[in-house]
């Protein structure tokens, strides 16, 4: 029976688990690329918020290769892929009432995005 013992606790709390994957997988996008979040409605876990679906943004940063939560949550494997930070203009999310200079930055996996 796997037991959590006192000596294991500091390590577990310190490391907290990394979800980065050491695999050489090519990115589909590069910083500056215009992308559109896919309009998907999975019944399982996803980290793609509803308010961003179908909206356009710009890739800000490529974090590297990470476990894909949607398949990992279903026990269907890690499906490692690039994770990006994507900038959405607030007006593209919330309409003309939003601040013209405001943005929302969301972390998005390759499988959430298409070219715009």
């Amino acid at each position, binding site marked *: 029976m796997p037991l*959590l013992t006192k000596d*294991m606790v500091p390590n577990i709390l310190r490391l907290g688990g990394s*979800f980065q994957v050491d695999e050489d997988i090519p990115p589909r996008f590069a910083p500056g690329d215009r992308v559109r979040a896919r309009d998907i409605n999975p*019944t399982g876990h*996803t980290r793609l*918020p*509803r308010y961003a679906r179908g909206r356009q943004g710009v890739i800000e940063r490529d974090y590297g290769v990470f476990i894909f939560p949607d398949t*990992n*949550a279903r026990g269907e494997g890690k499906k490692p892929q690039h994770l990006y930070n994507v900038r959405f203009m607030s007006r593209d999310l*919330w309409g003309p009432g939003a601040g013209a200079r405001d943005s929302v930055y969301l972390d998005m996996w390759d499988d959430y995005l298409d070219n715009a």
Partner: protein
Amino acid sequence: MNGVHDMGGMHGMGPIVLEEDEPVFHAEWERRIFALMRAMSVWERWNIDMSRHARERIPPARYLGSSYYERFLYSLETLLVEKGFLTQEEIEERVAELAREEA
């Protein structure tokens, strides 16, 4: 899933109330729930995304009325039942037993 946890853009939820010098745990039971979650993770029968999804599956009215660690507890119960550690009946019997002891 399109559940109530995905609250971005919703109106009417009120302001976020910030607590000054907020303690990590507000009650002893919260500390226990956190430790239980960690202790069970050593079994590696589920991953963080499965435990997040278990939290998202808390029925909407209950989800909105629950605190952070109450959601921890409900999702842990779901995972323990789904992975065969406990049955729903065993959990309910124990809750009833504790309620009787308290009465």
